[in-house]
């Protein structure tokens, strides 16, 4: 069992919770390799995917995770939900609450929406990404991927590169890395940094080339042009020159350094096609880990130890 009822931010999880989630995800990962991938663990439980911002990979990942645990899952998306008819998030929460849902995964354009839901309903709430704030299950699947490939988390130096300001992934990954004893460095131009990156607990470096030799993991972020009011750098070409991961940088880094990216990738901007498709890129491993980690999160929040993993 986890020490928390909801996973709204990484603050909700202790280091022990994180290890438990990753270990549980290891077991589910084996299940995902089987021909029959379904477990009866959450039979009769209802999981709602409340996705009020467009998302394909995260929604699909949660949906598959729920199905593999035999939960009854349903999707509320921005276009189908009542929010387009003007219903407030609190009313949506009250409505879902009245239908006795057990777990709600929420993805929302604005920060704090998962917390609002947690205050307005009894179900377990899992933050599936809120505004520029946090995306805890992404951080968990990233830790899972790093641990699977590198065999450890403690002591790793992880460079998170690019659009830190708009990134809820960075918002969760930085504290997650701190909790497991790794060292996060945020790397990018000052125009893509939050006001006080130090409060997240990361070192701040403006030059990728300066930090590169130290990195065990280069975690590349997509530049979220759609959220930026003004172009934060002169051109994609210039950005790629200073902050893009390419073959030359890969060659200059530690030979065992891995490259990760939460997707979707802007090939040619923050990551070259050559790197994206190289064996040192773990982008698809991350996607694969997403299902197992989300199964683990649902299982631990809803089922707990009582029903057992091995089925």
């Amino acid at each position, binding site marked *: 069992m986890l020490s928390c009822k909801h996973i709204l931010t990484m603050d909700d999880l202790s280091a022990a919770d994180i290890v438990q989630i990753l270990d549980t995800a290891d077991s589910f990962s084996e299940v995902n390799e089987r021909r029959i991938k379904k477990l009866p663990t959450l039979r009769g439980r209802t999981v709602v995917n409340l996705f009020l911002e467009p998302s394909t990979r995260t929604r699909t990942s949660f949906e598959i995770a729920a199905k593999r645990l035999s939960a009854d899952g349903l999707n509320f998306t921005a276009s189908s939900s009542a929010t387009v008819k003007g219903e*407030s*998030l*609190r009313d949506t929460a009250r409505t879902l609450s009245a239908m006795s849902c057990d777990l709600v995964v929420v993805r*929302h354009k*604005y*920060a*704090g*929406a998962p*917390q*609002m839901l947690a205050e307005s309903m009894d179900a377990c709430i899992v933050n599936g990404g*809120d*505004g*520029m*704030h*946090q995306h805890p299950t992404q951080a968990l699947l990233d830790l899972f991927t790093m641990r699977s490939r590198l065999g450890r988390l403690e002591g790793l130096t992880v460079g998170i590169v690019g659009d830190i300001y708009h990134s*809820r992934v960075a*918002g969760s990954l930085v504290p997650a890395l701190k909790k497991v004893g790794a060292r996060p460095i945020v790397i990018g131009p000052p125009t893509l940094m*939050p*006001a*006080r*990156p130090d*409060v*997240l607990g990361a070192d701040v470096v403006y030059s990728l080339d300066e930090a590169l030799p130290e990195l065990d993991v280069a975690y590349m972020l997509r530049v979220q042009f759609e959220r930026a*009011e003004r172009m934060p750098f002169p051109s994609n070409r210039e950005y790629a020159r200073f902050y893009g991961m390419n073959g030359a940088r890969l060659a200059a880094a530690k030979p065992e350094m891995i490259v990760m990216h939460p997707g979707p990738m802007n090939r040619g901007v923050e990551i070259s096609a050559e790197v994206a498709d190289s064996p040192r890129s773990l982008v698809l491993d991350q996607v694969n880990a997403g299902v197992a980690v989300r199964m683990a999160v649902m299982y631990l929040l809803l089922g707990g130890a009582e029903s057992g993993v091995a089925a």
Partner: protein
Amino acid sequence: MALLLKGGRVVDPAVGLDATLDIVIRDGVIAEVGEDLSIPKGETIDCAAKVVLPGLVDAHTHLREPGREDEETVESGTRAAAHGGFTAVCAMPNTDPVCDTGSGVRFLLERAEDVGVVRVHVIGAVTRGQRGEALAEIGDMRAEGAVAFSDDGHGIQTGGMARIAMDYLKAFDAVMISHAEDSSLSSGGVVNEGVISTRLGLPGWPAAAEEAMVARDIRLVELTGCRLHLAHLSTAGSIALVRDAKERGLPVTCEVTPHHLFLDEEALSGYDTNLKMNPPLRTAADREALIEAVCDGTVDCIATDHAPHALHEKELEFELAPFGTTGLETALSLVNTHLVSTEKLDWAAVARLMAHGPRAALGLPNVTLAAGSVADITIVDPEAKVEVTRDWLVGTSKNSAFLGARLLGKASDVLIGGYFALRNGKVVA
């Protein structure tokens, strides 16, 4: 009919009063102030253990009428004002439609005459529709009774427009109230830019967006000679600019709000939209600088920026919810709790900050406790216990940043022209 206020601590620094005295009121005017006074017939109010102040006035109130009567009206807003101990409020023009014509001013003054519980002074818009593009009919509004002019809520973004407005205002001897915000710097910001914006993943509203505009407006005072009042200053940097302007003898005044004095960004542990205001709650260091400036006289008045909002709008996501907290009903209690009972300020300073300061800043007729003055009087019970709850608030909207607070001291009675607007803590309808 005569009224005798018996044995209160009568405090008015404008006329050198701070003693236990009696006040006799006749025909709406203070007839006599002295010791052991009596009246042959009429009513005697026991003011023992109370503090008697010249009527408090709020320099910055949003009454929401016309346009958002579901949030507040002239009637409900002035009831809230009386409940909080104010004898007058100054209504900001960002209503729907904007108060940018003489008839808009007249409408509000007529509403106040009909249903107002306290006095209402009207602030007109500086630019048409508060769009910052062309002058509103400032002379017309002034002739109909507007006391001051402001594009509160937006600020005037271009220096050229602000300069024309400030030049023009001089012809009508009117003060410009500046909402200091460079929107190109604050755009999208909902909390102070810094620790909290980073922690909560919310767009930041940097102190520099206010300070850049304060600096510009002070320079325009030098250029035009127009009187300037800076609304709801929130940062240490703004205070430094005002202090410097005052030292240079410029006609610049400023106000701060109770929420910026008594709350800072650390209060935003979650996403409580009652703590979303414009300008946002700042750092603890800013807050301390504001308190210091209140105590040393740099700040002219404490003004509430009373901003009522409908519950269903405050229940939205933090970035979508409207800015603002109500303030009329809690301001005096907060000042007593945090500044007077802690001996940072005395009651004479409260009279300066909440009665004389705002009147002087906005050019309103002065009100004192001397014989001959109109009997606009606030009587305070400094030992009254207040718990700020939705039920305790009498205004229509309950979006107070201080819900749940336990405060010390409250207005017990408010007299306007000798008539009770608040009596024994209850609003007189």
